């Protein structure tokens, strides 16, 4: 799929803005703090209805306004025919000061994959960043994943509350049981989909990595859980029973997908400790690009790529290889502080809250 055009009104640093990008590569050039990331965020919001920077939609409208909107048209080609759908996302400030999103959403095939500086945390950050990464992919591949995740978190919060409030009472087991059972059911659903997402990623990651790193090393990704290979809710229930004593002491749930992690290895060594910062950034970028093919297969059309400053900290030869890999994508938006010599790219100058075709 691609974004045919987009119009912003009162979004972040933009009063109004209209952009007609091309298919393939679009480069957004400009000095820092001129609104490049804001524009990427708006493109992502158009496609997905969510911001990749914040969960508080009230941050998106320009300061002091009462309403903002992002309107545009998405196009996809299926069996040789191009179909177009218009999308309108409006943000309105209610009388109670709470922002609400309304409008006409995107079609179910619309997908966007974003990459930003914070993605290096997938490689060198805490386990939570990796769980968030794999849950994001699983949600793009399997539409019920996000709902299961919400349900799992609800059950987890309630189970933890019981552990905190009643840990010294004799009836603790009976109180915990209905929550443990639900935790096991939705938890195993999450683990199964995360494992499938990792498997879908693995093959493409090997291909993308050898294209970007010119075949000198190997990157591997594995799902890490205390449950080993188990796939039945019973296994999680049994693990909870084994951890029960410890859980009562600490007042929290100690096994389940909320404690799992991904193992990322470069040539067999942990990428967190091994690998330069440039290399870690390249792994993070490769992970995002490896997602393109599985998501394309699941959604029936290629996702739009939104890459924020993806080439910084990379040497000129690797930049060249990244640009070559991006050449295959249906539509890419790439921000950069300095001009790139990318053949065939549409270049837009972003400056002082405006945008100009260069």
């Amino acid at each position, binding site marked *: 799929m691609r974004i045919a055009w987009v119009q912003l009104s009162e979004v972040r640093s933009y009063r109004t803005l209209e952009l007609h990008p091309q298919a393939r590569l679009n480069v957004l050039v400009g000095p820092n703090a001129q609104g490049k990331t804001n524009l990427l965020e708006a493109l992502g919001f158009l496609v997905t209805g969510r911001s990749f920077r914040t969960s508080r939609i009230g941050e998106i409208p320009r300061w002091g306004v009462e309403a903002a909107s992002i309107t545009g048209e998405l196009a996809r080609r299926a069996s040789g025919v191009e179909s177009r759908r218009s999308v309108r996302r409006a943000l309105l400030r209610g*009388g*109670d000061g709470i922002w609400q999103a309304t409008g006409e959403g995107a079609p179910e095939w619309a997908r966007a994959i974003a990459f930003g500086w914070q993605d290096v945390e997938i490689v060198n950050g805490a386990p939570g960043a990796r769980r968030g990464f794999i849950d994001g992919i699983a949600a793009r591949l399997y539409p*019920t994943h996000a*709902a299961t995740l919400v*349900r799992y978190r609800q059950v987890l919060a*309630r189970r933890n509350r019981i552990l905190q409030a009643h840990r010294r009472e004799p009836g603790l087991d*009976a109180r915990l*049981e*209905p929550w443990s059972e639900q935790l096991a059911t939705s938890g195993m659903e999450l683990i199964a989909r995360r494992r499938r997402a990792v498997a879908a990623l693995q093959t493409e990651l090997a291909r993308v990595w050898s294209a970007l790193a010119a075949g000198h090393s190997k990157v591997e990704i594995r799902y890490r859980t205390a449950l080993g290979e188990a796939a039945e809710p019973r296994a999680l229930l049994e693990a909870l029973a084994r951890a029960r004593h410890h859980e009562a002491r600490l007042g929290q749930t100690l096994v389940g997908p909320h404690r799992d992690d991904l193992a990322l290895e470069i040539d067999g060594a942990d990428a967190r400790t091994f690998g330069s910062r440039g290399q870690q950034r390249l792994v993070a970028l490769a992970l995002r690009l490896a997602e393109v093919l599985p998501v394309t297969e699941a959604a029936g059309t290629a996702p739009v790529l939104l890459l924020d400053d993806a080439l910084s900290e990379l040497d000129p030869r690797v930049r060249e290889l990244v640009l070559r890999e991006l050449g295959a994508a249906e539509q890419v938006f790439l921000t950069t502080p300095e001009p790139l010599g990318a053949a065939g790219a549409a270049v837009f100058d972003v400056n002082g809250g405006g945008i100009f075709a260069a």
Partner: protein
Amino acid sequence: MAYYPEPVARLIEALQRLPGVGPKTAQRMTFFLLKRPVEEVRELAESLVAVKERIVYCGTCFNVTDQDPCRLCADPARDARVLCVVEEPNDLLAMERTGEFRGRYHVLLGALSPLDGIGPDDLKVRELLLRLEQGETAEVILATNPNVEGEATALYLAKLLRPLGLRVTRIARGLPVGGDLEYADQVTLSKALEGRREIG
């Protein structure tokens, strides 16, 4: 901020405690009432007091009623062998509106909710067990809500009732009747798939 005369402020304050009513709605309601004829307002005030004075919980099923036992519990035509367990009186009404269920009810007056500090002892669970001990019931239908609290309540009761040797069932989750498969959300559809049954 401007100050309202004391009686106005008091009413706004009182209305705000109602579910789904914020400060603005409470204000609008108050000024609406100020403009209405006094008989109409008196009628509202009296019905508010009457509901509190005359309505009690049925000592058997814990539905709201103006007579104890309630009409449903007193009706000899209703089948005492099937007992439908719901969270709130509203849920009982929803079941009754179907006109399909001819058994009896038990209202728990809530669901297990650790975040609100509501455990089994805060629900009408003991009363349910006492009713079942009388031995008239052959099947218990657990019709709590399909959210995490309702599900936990159903799981808890299922475990508790297992030793009694009754048939214990849970209402199905799935597709709305008259809807198109194509328009069903994925979560509902996958639950419907999970709860499929043999046909023919």
